[in-house]
């Protein structure tokens, strides 16, 4: 029987997407080192911002700055990260409700191990020094007071 054949096959799509004004503003904020949410008619703030109200479907336009620290609402531990993960070390993934926001956002939690994480703990943003307008401009979140 002939030797079994195998080959590497890579499918790669180098997409660039246009952002629109709302997501564009959020990413602009990240580049400038601030985090934006968007205010609903009832005064609550969605962060990350969405282009439409999730209940009424009305367009949302009032972008507001939220805090850089907040509460960890839920988390999981990732070990090891997959090859294309933004993080090359084991890390947490958490739902973080930032101060001034009413909804949580997903991001990485940069601690040494899962024993460093608990629901309700305070975490704060850690920024990359070089930023380009991308969610990875935020390196992740660390326990408040750690940096």
């Amino acid at each position: 029987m002939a030797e079994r054949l195998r080959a590497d096959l890579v499918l790669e799509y180098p997409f660039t997407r246009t952002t629109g004004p709302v997501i564009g503003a959020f990413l602009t904020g990240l580049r400038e080192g601030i985090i934006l949410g968007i205010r609903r008619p009832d005064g609550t703030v969605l962060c990350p911002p969405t282009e439409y109200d999730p209940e009424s479907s009305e367009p949302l336009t009032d972008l507001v700055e939220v805090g850089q620290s907040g509460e960890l609402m839920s988390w999981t531990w990732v070990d090891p990260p997959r090859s294309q993960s933004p993080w090359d070390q084991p890390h947490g993934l958490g739902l973080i409700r930032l101060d001034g926001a009413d909804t949580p956002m997903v991001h990485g939690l940069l601690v040494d191990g899962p024993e460093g994480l608990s629901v309700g703990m305070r975490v704060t943003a850690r920024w990359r020094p070089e930023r380009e307008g991308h969610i990875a401009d935020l390196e992740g979140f660390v326990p408040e007071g750690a940096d």
Partner: protein
Amino acid sequence: MSADPSIPPTALSGEVSLPEKLADVEPVRSVRTPIRLDYDFIPGSASSGYLNAFADRKILGQRSPVDGAVFVPPRGVDPRHGAATPDYVELPDTGHVGGFCVTRLPIPGRDDLEIPYVSAWIHLDGADIGFLGLVAGIDTSEVRMGMRVRAVWKPDDELGRTAENILHWEPTGEPDIPVTAAGTNAWHAKQAAAGEQG
């Protein structure tokens, strides 16, 4: 809710209000979102036979046991009938262009393709479906459906068990076959002829 769906939603028209801090900075308008899938490709038996034969400069198809239609590349089945196709057929490295496309924009990751280039369905003599190849050795504006072509192979010492052994297809200079008998039209004509005989 907006009653008239033809009116663009406010959020997409650019009328958003921003915090003071972002009033004078260049807004982000696009974001890179590359997608990459890494496969470890292991061919099945039909494809393995096809690829192994390439090392000997041979192109193999498989014949349908139902009506004799010849498929290339072989996949081990006649997909129309769900019938296994165990019998290989050796095909010549000549055929015609059944259809083609001129590409004038570069493809990321394929710097080896000089634009403009022509990709085409190559219908080998004796095959009933086409397979993809590049057409070269002719000005792109001269490529046409029904044009006779032959394979241009890599040098013998560079042959491997891969369809990449065929560098491209070049015109043979023979007269074109009529468009009505080219590409998938050939199959339809064959079916019609069989119907008349039956």
